[in-house]
């Protein structure tokens, strides 16, 4: 395998599992998460593989974020017709951004935490708490706390301002306070 292809392969290998996990938390099902991750990898490889290596991670998550957003929009559209999305809108106001329907989506399929916890044993207490977070809060939390992206990189990946990233992150921490207390030594 040529060097550039090997470099790309190694990068994708380094992010694919976490990307899949994030997509699964967002979608709640394995097949859609795999589809999103595959689409994100292919789109990233075609569009951004010639960019500098140190910019790959935020760019990859930007692509994946767009794929998840597309999926959520499709699901919301379908849910309206199915009449399954009757839950209240979460308050996740961003003073620096125009209203975004994505930020209010706790779970596109309208599942309860108990239902989420029962999916193939995949979700534990932490994952359940993450899955019930509004989408943008969860994504910012995972990119910042798990993937280790900086505020600027997270803003690039999420397509929002750095101020919004800080706001989402602090709200996610507040939402996860109970679960974080359980993890406090």
């Amino acid at each position, binding site marked *: 395998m040529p060097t550039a292809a090997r470099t790309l392969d190694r990068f994708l290998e380094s992010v694919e599992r976490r990307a899949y996990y994030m997509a699964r938390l967002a979608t709640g099902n394995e097949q859609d998460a795999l589809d999103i991750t595959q689409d994100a990898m292919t789109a990233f490889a075609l569009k951004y593989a010639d960019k500098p290596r140190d910019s790959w991670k935020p760019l990859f998550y930007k692509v994946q974020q767009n794929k998840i957003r597309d999926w959520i929009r499709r699901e919301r559209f379908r849910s309206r017709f199915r009449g399954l999305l009757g839950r209240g809108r979460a308050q996740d106001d961003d003073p620096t951004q125009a209203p975004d329907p994505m930020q209010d989506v706790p779970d596109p399929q309208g599942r309860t935490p108990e239902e989420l916890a029962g999916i193939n044993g995949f979700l534990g207490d932490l994952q359940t708490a993450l899955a019930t977070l509004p989408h943008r809060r969860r994504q910012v939390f995972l990119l910042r706390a798990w993937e280790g992206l900086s505020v600027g990189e997270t803003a690039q990946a999420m397509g929002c301002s750095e101020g919004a990233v800080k706001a989402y992150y602090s709200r996610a921490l507040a939402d996860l306070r109970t679960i974080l207390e359980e*993890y406090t030594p």
Partner: protein
Amino acid sequence: MKNEHDLALDAVRARLDSAVDELDVSTTERLRASRRRAVDAAMAADRGRSGAGGRFGLPTFGFSPFGLRAGGLALATGMLVLATVFLLRSQPGVVPTASESPVTVERVDILAAEQGLEFYHDLEFIQWLEAHQHAG
């Protein structure tokens, strides 16, 4: 020194890491296949974009399905026009006219140029008018 909050986040990270490490074989295989497809797509696109030796190191010598289609057609058309002009002009002592030859230099120039045909119809009329004035 880390505070309790940082330690809690470390524990969360460790829990998330273990969750992805515990992914089943079927899922990891499908992710691997997806990754291969993505890398292959990037290599194929790179071959299409670049000529000999793209970023992914495979020599293409300028031939790719898309490049050959567009570039080859333009090259073939240009060479055909040039060859026709060259052949017509290389005949010694022969100055083709519109009435003598079905394919003349003038008409080849017309085909190669971007002027509208009406312009050349007018040109023929002016030439005819000029010839009659000289004759008269």
